[in-house]
């Protein structure tokens, strides 16, 4: 048996083991699950070392870029969790990561989720020279965005006029979710088709 054929058989059997979960939890699924988790954890350990630690830290230290000693020290702090007496040092590294992550993201969010969104909503409602459906589309965008924003307003109870507008916002959100659901299900079906094709074509040669 060639190595390639062995690989195909192994992949097919493991696929069936995972599919057996559709019946109920069983030893075959447990075996495939543990193998998958263990192999992927090992794979990502190697991947992170060769793609993150080595090029970003070790190579820079070897090039005498001494400012990279700071991340090295913070990394060492993370490992201090293994020593209970100095485990508190890991909080510094975590605080640095959370603080810098949030600080860097605020600009991105402010741009893409605030200014750009407002700008894209500023559409003309002047019907002169435009087909009726374009004007209707612009009007729906306006109503949908404003009512959606009112729904996410936490300082006022959803009663009276605010509640009515918020309910319109929920309707828009649900229509959006419905469309997204259908779109994503189609993508998932294509994944299933890919796996079935592997079983029926690559493994069994039936199609």
């Amino acid at each position, binding site marked *: 048996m060639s190595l390639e054929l062995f690989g195909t058989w192994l992949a097919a059997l493991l696929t069936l083991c995972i599919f057996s979960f559709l019946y109920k939890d069983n030893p075959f699924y447990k075996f495939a699950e543990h193998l*998958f988790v263990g192999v992927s*954890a090992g794979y990502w350990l190697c991947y992170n070392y060769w793609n993150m630690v080595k090029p970003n830290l070790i190579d820079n230290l070897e090039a005498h870029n001494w400012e990279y000693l700071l991340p090295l020290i913070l990394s060492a702090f*993370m490992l201090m969790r293994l020593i209970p007496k100095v485990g508190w040092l890991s909080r510094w590294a975590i605080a640095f990561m959370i603080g810098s992550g949030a600080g860097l993201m605020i600009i991105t969010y402010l*741009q893409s989720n605030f200014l750009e969104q*407002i700008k894209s909503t500023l559409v*003309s*409602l002047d019907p002169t020279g435009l087909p009726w459906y374009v004007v209707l589309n612009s009007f729906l965008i306006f109503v949908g965005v404003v009512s959606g924003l009112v729904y*996410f307003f*936490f300082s006022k109870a959803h009663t009276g006029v605010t509640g009515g507008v918020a309910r319109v916002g929920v309707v828009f959100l649900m229509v*959006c979710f419905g469309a997204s659901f259908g779109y994503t299900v189609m993508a998932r079906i294509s994944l299933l088709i890919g796996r079935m094709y592997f079983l029926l074509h690559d493994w069994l040669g039936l199609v």
Partner: protein
Amino acid sequence: MLDSILEAVTFVSVRYKDTKEQRLLRRELHVIFGICARQRLGFNLSVIRIRALRVLLPVVVVVLVILGATTVFPVGSSSSNAPPRPPIGIALQDRPNDAGGAIEITWEASKDDSRGRGTVNSYSIYRSEQPQSGFVKIKTVSSGKEEYRYNDEEVENDKRYYYRVTAETSSDAFSDSGVVGPVTASPQWFHSDRWNMLIALLIVSASVLTFITLARKGKDLYIRPIAGLQAVDEAVGRATEMGRPVLYVPGILDMDDVQTIAGVAILGRVARKTAEYETSLLVPVSRSVVMSAAQETVKEAYWDMGKADAYHPDMVRYITDDQFGFAAGVDGIMLREKPATVFFQGAFYAESLILAETGHSIGAVQIAGTAMTSQLPFFVTACDYTLIGEELFAAGAYLTEDPRLVGSLKGQDVAKGLAIAFIVIGIILETAGYHWLTNFLKVN
């Protein structure tokens, strides 16, 4: 020339029979050229013929000579090895609004580019740190434009550089712009096209800080009830009554994602409840840093509730970084541990429905929360409660009532109010044909 045509027509009309149509034609020609052809009708025919030939022949010869010459020797061209005219208007500048390390070179096309003789087929850019020597070719760009721009991103900050640009033909003839420079690259602290971002940031920050200050001074700030969060205590209580654990999944992204941060913040509240009710808590994670942060959060919650002995680090378990490996591992935990309550709070991708369906199949109460719009439909479908987008970030403030978080949430509400005002005013202006607000909001 026109006079010659008139004479030729007159010649023909005299030579042959003078028909009505020919007379009409003559009259038209008289009107057009303002010439009294009738007077010429009295000329001797041979004189007319000689005059016509005398005028027409040199014209034809001259035209033929010019056409032939321009075909064989294009106007203004020289031999194929002659150098083209050089590029003009070479300008160097430190690329604006960047982090340094780049110089922008612009120039106008050679007169022999596509709008001229078309002999220039490329331009080469040379760089040196000395004006007299050491020039190295760094880039060649194709011709065909009126203006050219190239960003040299292989320079060091605060170093002086000189440039030359050459226009080249297909036969390797070239002409040089001459040395231009020096120029230095440097980073800019402020992006001059992003004043709108600064103004927005200052407004949002000011409102957040104002409300945090008010909250700290004890001002009662109202936050409306959020259905999914009101169910947290009830769901943990259910697990306690059933004697089964609570499962909490803080998403699959790392701690630099705000959704994970929000998820870990909510975990603190859930952990306090499980500590209070002495209910078992399971927190599978897919990132090592999230594991550390989650362990710290759970540990602190148990200590705060005076249940330090009930805490053990294995409550938070690292599974794997792999997306579907993680999904398979969490599914296995759900099937074997059979938690009564499952929380999905954070960033999720395609594994969301796999996890939520498994939780549903074991009859767990499920409370999900994410800002991933593509996954929200699955959580809405398969979970009992779903925190939609912004509600996930509001959850920390709602559950903990921490003045900093509550003030921050109120400050963000002010920003949302401003956004609504901008949208209403902006749409009115756009409809009236004014675009300045739209242009102001444009981010470069």
